């Protein structure tokens, strides 16, 4: 039982190492893809949502800070 458990543990560690190496090799590709996706989101939606975000900064949510008008 013990050896089987140890065997499973070794297998999991080996898989983890494999995954880590695979991830390390593909990091540049993953970074570039993610950057492209996030950049696309910002560029595409800034026109719609920038002013909304600015409104959030300008409009003071007094109830959020525990105050009443």
């Amino acid at each position: 039982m013990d050896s089987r458990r140890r065997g499973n543990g070794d297998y999991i560690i080996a898989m983890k190492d494999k995954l880590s190496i695979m991830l390390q090799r593909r990091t540049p590709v993953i970074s570039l893809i993610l950057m492209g996706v996030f950049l696309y989101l910002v560029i595409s939606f800034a026109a719609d949502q920038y002013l909304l975000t600015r409104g959030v900064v300008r409009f003071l949510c007094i109830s959020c800070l525990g105050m009443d008008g």
Partner: protein
Amino acid sequence: MSRLRRSTQILSLILVNLGIIGILETGVVCPFFYCHGCPAAAFACPIGLLQNHAALGPFPFYALGSLGLFAVVAGRFWCGWGCPFGTLQDLIVWVRRRRRDYVSLGTFPWGRLVVLAGALIAAWIATDTLFCKICPAGSLFGAIPHRFISPELSFGTFFYVHIGTLVIALVAFFLVGRFWCRYLCPLGGALGLLNRVSILKVKLDMDKCTQCGECLEVCPTNIEEVEDIGGSSDCIRCGRCIDVCPTDAIKISASLRG
């Protein structure tokens, strides 16, 4: 490097408060935790903004895109070099003048993501920014300044809840270094997800490393394994490990390679 880091922390505190000049109250998302309820805030708090979207819609493409970009570019570098709430915690550690924590709680990186998920789900269900009502950063940067500059407003129950959470947080900061960043910060949870693939990296050269453990000794987020330096979602890229490494095995650099 620590002097440079302190300078950027002060500079970032000035930058986030440029909203005191009305025209500089922008719709740009902040890469770190800073309450846009602050009377001088120039940027939007990403967590407050995501809650707003969760409560009232529409889907936060712009906020998520901005947050994702910050994470891909520098991971949790923002926490170590810019976040005013992190600066406060560094200040408390400096006042305490103790390197090691009084209390060792181990690591629990999922805690931050649980807080993030909880805040967004609560906002969606209650159609209100509930996390903002208890946020200790909101207490410090939003509620307390308003107490002085808006005396005409009346202060209700949640103001005292704010004060309560801030006091609890301050006590926790005295007991455990960077407590907020390590266990509770929802933004740190989100940024930490991309620490491993971010362009700005802290790299450890294992050939030069003598396993002396100096880096782990000074790590404010209590990283326990040398191999986790830089890649762990706990790493805030503060660079303390770089300063103390006797063999210059640790470096901070920008590169696409893993």
